[in-house]
């Protein structure tokens, strides 16, 4: 019984970690640009296809390919689609982000077809390990470890580097940051690059778990993670990560705790919980300080 509870918990935390990384990627871009980047799903997707392309050679090459692919696509999207729209109102940005997302997804379907493809990536991690008498999947432990490392690394970057400081300033008051001489292009491109990196990590872990790559992958993750950033507090990075984590954990716990006949309504319960959180705390659990765009 105890062992089962720990298994569920580890499962919940590992899924929570994936959502936290996804939500952090979305939150970073929202922070500096007030843009909800639904094309984050396509960053995950492109990284997935990079894994498909290289996994036969070596796992390291596949991971590297995923990172390079997602970061390059993130920078390309920023340069071609979002930079010309800098300062546009949030509705325009939102529609543009949907457009970019659909465009890349449909282009990919045209190029490679919509059928899922099997990927035998990091299958060595699929085996069970026994820790203190509890059997756990190694991949889940790796997922937790990678999530923690990336969350800590992102926090370190934001707190301890000059560029991180500039990003935090830009997230709080973009215009004032520019008045002080902070270069908008550099800060925003960095945010996109980091979001690409996080998407690549999520893609690698997700592909290893599911063993599948397809053009629509990432969408479900991004929508749920976006819900996480909203309940965490839009514009607040700790809020985004925490909200994403909570939503991921809640998904698994609902799956485990709901009576079997109600499990198909898991998402309905999840969104009900989200609605309740937003009624009680409309600003989110960890609200952002002053979402100011102009002086």
């Amino acid at each position, binding site marked *: 019984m105890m062992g089962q509870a720990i298994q569920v918990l580890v499962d919940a935390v590992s899924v929570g970690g994936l959502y936290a990384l996804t939500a952090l990627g979305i939150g970073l871009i929202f922070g500096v640009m007030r843009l909800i980047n639904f094309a984050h799903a396509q960053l995950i997707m492109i990284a997935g296809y990079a894994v498909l392309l290289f996994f036969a050679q070596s796992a390291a090459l596949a991971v590297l390919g995923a990172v390079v692919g997602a970061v390059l696509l993130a920078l390309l999207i920023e340069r071609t689609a979002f930079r010309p729209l800098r300062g546009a109102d949030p509705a325009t940005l939102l529609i543009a982000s949907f457009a970019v997302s659909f465009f890349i997804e449909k282009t990919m379907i045209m190029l490679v077809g919509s059928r899922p493809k099997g990927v035998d990536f990091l299958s060595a991690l699929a085996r069970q390990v026994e820790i203190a008498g509890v059997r756990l999947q190694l991949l889940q432990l790796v997922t937790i470890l990678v999530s923690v490392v990336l969350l800590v690394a992102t926090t370190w970057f934001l707190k301890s580097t000059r560029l991180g*400081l*500039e990003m*935090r*300033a830009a997230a*709080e*008051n973009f*215009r*004032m*940051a*520019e*008045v*002080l*001489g*902070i*270069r*908008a292009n550099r800060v925003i491109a960095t945010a996109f690059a980091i979001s690409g990196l996080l998407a690549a990590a999520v893609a690698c872990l997700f592909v290893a778990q599911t063993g599948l790559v397809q053009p629509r992958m990432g969408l479900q993750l991004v929508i749920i993670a976006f819900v996480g950033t909203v309940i965490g507090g839009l514009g607040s990075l700790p809020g985004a990560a925490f909200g994403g984590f909570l939503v991921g954990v809640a998904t698994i716990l609902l799956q485990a705790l709901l009576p079997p006949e109600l499990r198909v309504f898991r998402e309905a319960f999840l969104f009900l919980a989200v609605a309740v959180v937003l009624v009680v705390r409309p600003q989110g659990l960890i609200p952002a*300080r*002053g979402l*100011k765009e102009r*002086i």
Partner: protein
Amino acid sequence: MTDHSDKPSGDSLVEVCGLVVRYGGIAAVQGVDLRIGAGEAVAIVGPNGAGKTSLLSAIAGIVRPSAGTVEVSGRPLAGLALSDVVRQGIALVPEGRNIFGSLTVMENLRLGATPRRDASVAADIDRVFADFPILGERRDQPAGQLSGGEQQMLAIARAMLSKPRLLMLDEPSLGLAPTIVDKVYELLGQIRAQGVALLVVEQNAARAFALADRACVMSRGVFTLTGTPEEIGRHEAFDAAYFGVAMTPTAGAA
């Protein structure tokens, strides 16, 4: 528009010519000429909605003028990215101070030195802490926890860390207790003594006049009076110009 420019003392640092700022159909600044000499202190006073903030925002590069030019040391600002204006030696302390409330006092100051690549930034920040011990004590606290007066000192210190040739301040006394305003203006006096030019926008005309070499009264987007603060203070049209009634007698006082 009428020529309200007047002689700068010393070399011209900033030169504004025929500046017009429009928001949609509304012209907030309707043709302003202004020259600021190196080390000169200029006050712009006038009622709410006179266009003072728009003028400052145009000089700082935050809003694009619809017409007219802004030059710094003979070099036009048009076409420069907003983040490059401070690199021309122009620093702005906007209305409401706009410190980064979630960042620490120290981080706010480090951001002020963004354009600098020299090694003396840390020493300059230490000097800020020596001059304002309260900022030193709270260097690791979020700046949002400071009082209004402390935030204003931080905003000015932050702007000064870019080593500007011109410091522009929008309503530096707004919302502060009179004793704090004394301190702010004492600090501005010290900054002026260092040879930094000042452009101060104020509703509190008396304070700004005490500091300034020259003053301009702005109303409805234009300078209605310019001169030394003494000249303007004595001018019988001052009240009318200040409150904007001189422009359109039918409109009544603001």
